[in-house]
């Protein structure tokens, strides 16, 4: 936490900290992401490898995969989503409590991949608001860990307090009712800007680009 300052009282050892509510909430959220493992095909194996001891996603606080959507924060769509399964995927997403994020893992869920066919959803972003796309067929577990870290940096920039104060404003077109207007809903329109680049994420590329421009 960048803006965290420790203020110690002089007369005893017990201290307190001053921070911002947004910072504190985001810090808590980003370090306790519970994934919803929607392992639909081959990518699910790499997802399991990521959660297992060798790659150990517990280092980033995201090892508690839960099979009940009510307990999850981040839905990892790992694999080929068919139109027949799409209703189930959307239902699971709607059942997850707010705040929630979606990672599209693998080219299948990002764009349909090699399944240019009548049975496969051509990118889960046509039914879900996706935050991070992970390329690869399948992506290595480290690529997925990178996606989790990117998501953490994205969460850092959110403004949860604003939503608490202003409340849910309108019924979102997905029909999920209260809290339907997720903060990441606008991602849908900015679909190619989310993984890197213009979303304000300070990755190596954008810093290099900024240097070139100046």
């Amino acid at each position: 936490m960048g803006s965290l300052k420790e203020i110690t009282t002089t007369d005893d050892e017990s201290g307190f900290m001053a921070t911002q509510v947004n910072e504190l909430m985001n810090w808590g959220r980003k370090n306790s992401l519970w994934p919803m493992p929607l392992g639909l095909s081959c990518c699910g194996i790499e997802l399991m490898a990521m959660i297992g001891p060798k790659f150990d996603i517990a280092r980033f606080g995201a090892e508690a995969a839960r099979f009940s959507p009510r307990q999850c924060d981040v839905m990892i769509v790992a694999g080929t989503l068919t139109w027949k399964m799409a209703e189930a995927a959307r239902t699971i997403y709607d059942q997850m409590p707010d705040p929630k994020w979606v990672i599209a893992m693998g080219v299948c869920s990002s764009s349909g991949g090699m399944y240019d066919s009548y049975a496969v959803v051509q990118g889960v972003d046509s039914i879900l608001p996706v935050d991070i796309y992970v390329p690869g067929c399948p992506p290595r577990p480290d690529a997925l860990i990178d996606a989790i870290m990117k998501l953490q940096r994205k969460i850092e920039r959110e403004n949860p307090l604003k939503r608490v104060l202003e409340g849910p404003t309108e019924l979102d077109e997905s029909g999920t009712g209260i809290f339907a207007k997720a903060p990441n809903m606008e991602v849908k329109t900015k679909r190619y800007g989310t993984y890197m680049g213009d979303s304000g994420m300070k990755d190596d590329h954008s810093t290099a680009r900024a240097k070139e421009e100046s």
Partner: protein
Amino acid sequence: MTASEHVLGLGWDDVSAVEERDGMPTLQVAPQRLRELLEILKRDLGFEVAILVTAVDHSPKAPRFELVQQFLSIQNNERLRLRCPLEGDNPSAPSCIDLWPGAAYMERECWDMFGIQFDGHKNLRRLLMPEAYGHHPLRKEFPHQGIEPDRLYREWERSRIERAAEREGQEGVNS
């Protein structure tokens, strides 16, 4: 005597042998004779297993569809393939699930993918596609990206939104 020789020896003029490139004995049979032939295969010739029930779409040639069935006899170490041309765009064929119950799924898949009706099948529902889909994907005229593949999903989504809006309205009245 092999099974195909036995069948040909019955002297039916609507059953004939076909040369196959892969060497499996193959009989071409007319649809009205198919059921009788299947019963003989099961009862007299010891074919215990139905390996495959599928079809071929020969469009635009006529007859359009060809039903292909393969059987295995474990006791005689023998295989046999039947080919049965079916007339028309929405053909039907006799079911064989009372003889080989294991063929039930294959016939359902065949109905799903080609739209071939199986008379006598108790539960001829689609196997892979949603029940209300309305197209048969392995037919020649079906484009590989499908015809409105998201139609059923969008209908479902719309009905959810309507239900949610209704719920919202009711809650407003109660509170």
